[in-house]
């Protein structure tokens, strides 16, 4: 049983899914919902894949380029979405992602509709270093002034503005950070799966990431991480039913959100785990004194 989970490909995918879930979570923590995230991960994958495989450039350079392009595209999403609100902004990002998919199809150098073969460079340890760095960054973000600012803007744009916060700047920033992480996920995806095609980055991919965040819990980053881990493992168990994946995800969202609207891992859960460790730490300290 355990051996199917320890294949390099599975470990890569798990890390990539976690990265992708967190990349969607960050703009949502600032009150922005991106249906266009599939386009962002696709941009990172395509650009980095083309750089290493077609141009023969070194991987680190391609990785940085992939992150930068997705980050910039994310900021563009945000800036355009700012003109409208909530659902309208989300749909706007979806339209942009569709444009990206059409563009991928139109480029002959990367195989058009067929896609192209990328040199598999990535090893699981590289993905997991990326995951740990991003999680560390996000953890710091959540527990900083900037994280509180995001939360304030999510609750009320109007009130945050009258507190002197430049809400436009912070929204674009959140999308930029999320975009960079989505780009990184794309870079790893391209160099791990090693075959990328436009259809890999269609809307279903965003739906998958939303499932991670909604089922896991959208209040903290641990929800996104937990959701990605849980569902990636779950998918391995129902591998026979790959075609039913979106169906299963849909049912899961409905069931979980009905019984636990905040997702499986709530902020309160995270706090109690934190308190538990503080207590253990205190106990150990008292013992050693």
């Amino acid at each position, binding site marked *: 049983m355990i051996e199917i989970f320890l294949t390099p490909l599975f470990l890569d995918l798990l890390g990539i899914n976690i990265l992708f879930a967190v990349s969607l979570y960050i703009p949502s923590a600032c009150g922005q919902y991106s249906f266009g995230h599939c386009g962002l991960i696709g941009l990172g994958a395509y650009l980095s894949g083309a750089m290493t495989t077609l141009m023969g450039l070194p991987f680190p350079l391609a990785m940085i380029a992939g992150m930068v392009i997705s980050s910039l595209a994310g900021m563009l999403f945000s800036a355009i979405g700012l003109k409208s609100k909530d659902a309208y902004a989300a749909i706007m990002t979806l339209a942009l992602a569709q444009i990206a998919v059409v563009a991928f199809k139109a480029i002959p150098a990367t195989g058009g509709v067929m896609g192209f073969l990328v040199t598999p460079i990535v090893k699981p340890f590289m993905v997991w270093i990326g995951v740990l760095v991003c999680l560390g*960054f996000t953890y*710091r*973000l959540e527990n*900083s*002034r*900037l994280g*509180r*600012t995001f*939360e*304030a803007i999510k*609750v*009320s744009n*109007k*009130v*945050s*503005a*009258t*507190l*002197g*916060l*430049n*809400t436009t*700047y*912070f929204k674009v*920033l959140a999308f930029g950070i999320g975009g960079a992480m989505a780009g990184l996920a794309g870079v790893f995806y391209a160099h791990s799966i090693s075959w990328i095609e436009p259809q890999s980055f269609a809307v279903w991919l965003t739906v998958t990431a939303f499932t991670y965040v909604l089922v896991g819990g959208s*209040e903290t980053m641990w929800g996104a991480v937990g959701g990605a881990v849980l569902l990636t493992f779950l998918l391995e168990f129902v591998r026979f039913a790959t075609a039913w994946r979106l169906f299963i995800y849909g049912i899961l969202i409905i069931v979980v959100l009905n019984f636990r609207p905040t997702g499986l891992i709530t*902020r309160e859960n995270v706090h109690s785990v934190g308190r538990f460790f503080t207590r253990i730490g205190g106990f150990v300290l008292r013992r050693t004194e």
Partner: protein
Amino acid sequence: MMLDIKDLSKSFGGVSAVNHVSIKVEKGEIHGLIGPNGAGKTTLFKLISKVLKPDSGGIGFNGTVVTGLPSYQVARLGIGYVFQDSLLFGSMTLFENMLVCGNTPVNSGLLSLLPLYQKKEERGLKERVREVLKLFNLEAKAEFYPRQLSYGDQRRALIARTLINGASLFLLDEPSAGMNAIEREELSKDILQMRKQGHTIFIIEHNLRLIMGICDTISVLNFGKLIYEGTPKEVANDKGVIEAYIGKQNG
């Protein structure tokens, strides 16, 4: 002169919510704004803080024209708006709520992620938060979440946060709504205390006893028009003002 509203107008689809209103608020005074429901009081505040854009007219603050500025820049100049319907951010403690301010020496952007950056300023800010919470008699509740605070305390905390954010002019929109008599007493004490520290207060209030007790000047709006301005005593005796209020009672 602190706040200078000149000929300000705003209409919503033909209904004129604020109709050529000019009001001057002097530095250090407590200026009341009263009027029947729908008189345009809240709209006027939203125009000042740029939550809404005025159709015409101008707003000056300490000699700066703020008419074209976005909301957050108006806030940074020192105009603090406490909404009638807003509450504290529910997922943060009272203390953390006080730290959500864009107008302090501590950077709120990407730089704030560096652990050692601006430690000193942050310490200063936290010191200031403790000071202000003490002033509002809330220091014992600093680690409480908003849901653990009474309604009155939550409302007063919003004013405290505006003070931490460096406001010198406070736009208070019905701060006493929903408060009991004791909380209202505390509120008026806080407001008088703030004035003593040199702050200016522009306040919308339905509780006439509160507003008559603390205001230096009162402006009366009715159907978007300024109908009277004077001391509390003059306002209480003005025929037009009484008619506006009694007319509302009959209708």
